[in-house]
């Protein structure tokens, strides 16, 4: 009996590995289980190898599992290509295509005539359905819900095709019983259905919920799903989604639409953010609200487009010439991608600044169950000019918090010229030192106000930590699970995860650091960008700080965090927690 398990399916294009994973995830979510589903592909656009991994759990989960409890292998050659990502647990159940003999090093592999059986039953492409019937039965998954999902999947096909696939599914159920292999069944109580969303979809929905009605973007992996979803829904909502000629144009159109009074967003990945850097500065000096979602991937340059990394932090926080206030938020998981997107709009609109939302491939493209009731968030609006502001209107008037009333085209008396040139309170170009100093101070005051109003961070674990872990973004999932394991074994570990990265909640972070006997910084950036950045903002004593920073391209595992954390614990504890 177990309250969670992880299943993988690997094969070539046409084997239906990813489709099977989808069906499995949806059926489990239907029964109220928690699910995290990830996919991996070879470089081919179509027909290449693919793998799909589904973690199913009766309790909340925050990360993929480190190891796989059961895998279906349609082709060993394809399995070999994902070797470093598909780590089998000791005693893992391996079902493989009988026509393709298992390599010697894989023990206890069970041959199954997937192709032969499904062909005999009249569904030549149904081997993934056969696998679903087997996996569902072997591991105590909601078989009826999976069967219904299969039926729905083939609902639009001819009746004969649907019937054949259901026959194949039922044969899978029988076949599993025949095998007589011992498996650990999932124990769970069925609950209300959960939403299944990717981080990119959660960001897109967050934008819609925040009132975004203009999106301009240029396709780039791994962010394009945001463009796709907003391209479908914004027109229905009376909004506009434009695919531009490049990222310069995308963010330019966003600033233009925002100037005209519409909440606007673009989404991209590292290379696109690089191109947008000059426009970020324009948005900052012109004080136009804008939201830029950056779904990070391996860099630099083209890097690894399909895999996650946390190495755009410096770029997000520092990109651009000149003194340029901007806000950077790091989403921690799929659900948080929704909240962080609405927060990004709220801050952009209230404070008239560019807000960069850092997500990454692991958040953006994994699908995860979410409780629908968690998907709500307050929405804020921009400070528009009132009639009294419009007498002798000064668009960039000095105010205590640096935010000046904004007028939009169409408003009589609100006319002004916005400008990438330094300007006076009315927006007229100025090259005078005193004006530059005054306007810089005004623009930077907004960051102080934002830091006070939005000290966004999460804190997990022990109240009196002997070890405090500092991390951000998607790394927090594995860190959170590691902390639960460590603390269950008697350690006192906590984590501080700033979602607001600029302006950083430095006071809260400093307090946390001071409360920890030891500190461990964990991140997926070879150059340890997060650690370096923290050093510019808080006092991180070298004598008690260790850093675990490595390249992205493989997601952070829970055991990796446990091992690193253990090294920061007293020796006696170390043996205890690693036992």
């Amino acid at each position, binding site marked *: 009996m177990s309250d969670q398990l992880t299943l993988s399916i690997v094969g070539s294009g046409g084997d239906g590995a990813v489709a099977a994973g989808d069906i499995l995830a949806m059926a489990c979510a239907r029964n109220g289980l928690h699910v995290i589903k990830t996919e991996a592909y070879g470089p081919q656009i179509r027909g290449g190898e693919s793998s799909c991994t589904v973690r199913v759990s009766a309790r909340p989960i925050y990360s993929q599992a480190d190891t796989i409890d059961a895998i279906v292998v349609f082709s060993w050659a394809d399995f070999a290509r994902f070797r470093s990502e598909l780590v089998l647990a000791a005693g893992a159940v391996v079902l493989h295509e009988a026509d393709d003999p298992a390599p010697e090093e894989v023990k206890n592999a069970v041959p199954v005539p997937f192709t032969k059986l499904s062909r005999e039953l009249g569904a030549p492409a149904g081997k993934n359905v056969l696998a679903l019937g087997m996996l569902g039965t072997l591991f105590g998954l909601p078989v009826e819900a999976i069967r219904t999902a299969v039926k729905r999947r083939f609902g639009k096909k001819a009746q004969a095709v649907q019937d054949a696939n259901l026959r194949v599914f039922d044969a899978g159920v029988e076949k599993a019983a025949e095998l007589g292999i011992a498996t650990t069944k999932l124990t769970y109580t069925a609950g209300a259905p959960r939403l299944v969303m990717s981080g990119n979809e959660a960001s897109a929905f967050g934008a*819609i919920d925040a009132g975004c009605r203009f999106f301009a973007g240029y396709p780039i992996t791994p962010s394009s799903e945001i463009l796709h979803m907003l391209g479908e*829904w914004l027109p229905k909502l009376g909004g506009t989604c434009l695919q531009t000629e490049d990222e310069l*144009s995308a963010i330019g159109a966003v600033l233009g639409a925002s100037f005209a009074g519409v909440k606007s967003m673009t989404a991209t990945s590292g290379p696109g953010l690089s191109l947008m850097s000059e426009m970020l500065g324009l948005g900052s000096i012109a004080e136009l609200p804008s939201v830029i979602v950056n779904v990070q991937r391996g860099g630099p340059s083209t890097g690894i487009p399909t895999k996650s990394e946390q190495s755009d932090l410096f770029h997000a926080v520092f990109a651009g010439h000149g003194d340029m206030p901007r806000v950077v938020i790091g989403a921690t998981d799929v659900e948080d991608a929704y909240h962080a997107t609405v927060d990004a709009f709220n801050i952009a609109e209230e404070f008239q600044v560019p807000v960069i939302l850092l997500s990454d491939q692991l958040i953006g493209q994994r699908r995860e169950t979410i409780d629908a009731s968690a998907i709500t968030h307050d929405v804020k609006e921009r400070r528009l000019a009132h009639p009294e502001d419009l007498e002798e209107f000064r668009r960039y008037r000095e105010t205590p918090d640096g935010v000046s009333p904004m007028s939009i085209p169409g408003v009589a008396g609100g006319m002004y010229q916005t400008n990438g040139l330094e300007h006076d309170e009315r927006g007229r170009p100025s090259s005078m030192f005193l004006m530059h100093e005054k306007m810089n101070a005004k623009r930077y005051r907004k960051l102080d106000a934002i830091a006070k109003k939005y000290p966004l961070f999460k804190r997990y674990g022990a109240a009196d930590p002997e070890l405090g872990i500092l991390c951000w973004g998607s790394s927090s999932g594995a860190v959170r699970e590691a902390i639960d394991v460590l603390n269950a074994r008697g350690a006192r570990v906590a984590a501080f995860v700033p979602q607001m990265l600029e302006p950083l909640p430095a006071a809260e972070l400093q307090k946390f650091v001071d409360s920890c006997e030891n500190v461990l910084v964990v991140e997926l950036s070879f150059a340890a960008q997060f650690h370096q950045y923290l050093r510019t903002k808080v006092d991180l004593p070298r004598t008690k700080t260790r850093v675990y920073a490595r390249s992205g391209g493989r997601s952070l595992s829970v055991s990796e965090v446990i091992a690193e954390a253990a090294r920061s614990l007293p020796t006696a504890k170390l043996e205890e927690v690693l036992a």
Partner: protein
Amino acid sequence: MTCEAVYTPNSYKTDLKPVWCPGCGDFGVLNSLYRALADLKCEPHDTVVVSGIGCSSRLPGYVETYGFNSLHGRALPIATGVKLAAPDLTVVAVGGDGDGIAIGGNHFLHSARRNLDIAYIMMDNEIYGLTKGQAGPTTPIGDKTKSTTYGNPDEAVDPCGLAIAFGASWVARGFSGDIKGSTELMKQAVAHKGFAFLNIMSPCVTWRGDDQFKELRAKVRAIAPEHDKTSREAAQRFCNEKGVITTGVLYEVKTPTLVDEMLDIRWRAQGDAPLPQRDDILATFLPKT
């Protein structure tokens, strides 16, 4: 702005004094724009003038409307956002030849092919003026400039030829020395439904010499009234001409604008159905029973 002042050229003037050199062709363009806006009775607060960077891109500051002086080469993306967000606004983009064809050339192509419903006025002086005299995309081949000590190695492009090839639905050429003619062309450009491209030869007396006005004036010929404006081939014959500069409307067709297309997309997406609610969207992520 007081009501009685509206709709005269003077009412579109701001209190800013242009930074341009005495004798600059851009003064003529600015004066033509004041007249065109007044003649068309453009409501100042419903008008947005957008620019990039360069001498000519300073223009929005001198026009009493909403204005956006953006980045080098990026006037058109900004104008795209403004127009799509608020289609009822009159949007005029202005800038130089370097801004629009060199650094911003890609946006020129795509704004034209989308038939973005704006007027785009290019002040063409065949030089980079603000950076003090380097060769630009319309500088004739062989010309010696600050950046081409031994002569410009690049063939000049004709902005109107590009606009026609890119799919602009209205293309014209004017001369800043002819304020009356330029005003007429600007009025048509602003009134045109779709991407209206107006290239105005606007001499740079500082970096192209005092004689540029005279030389241009000698070459300018008004287009023949019988010219077939609907023919791309006929229009292209007035591009890259040698020794002559033909002014007037070279090309004009009626095609759906980007705003039309976007409205049509909304209709295709939603039709008469009520606006979707957030729960309708969330429901698409709920596993089906």
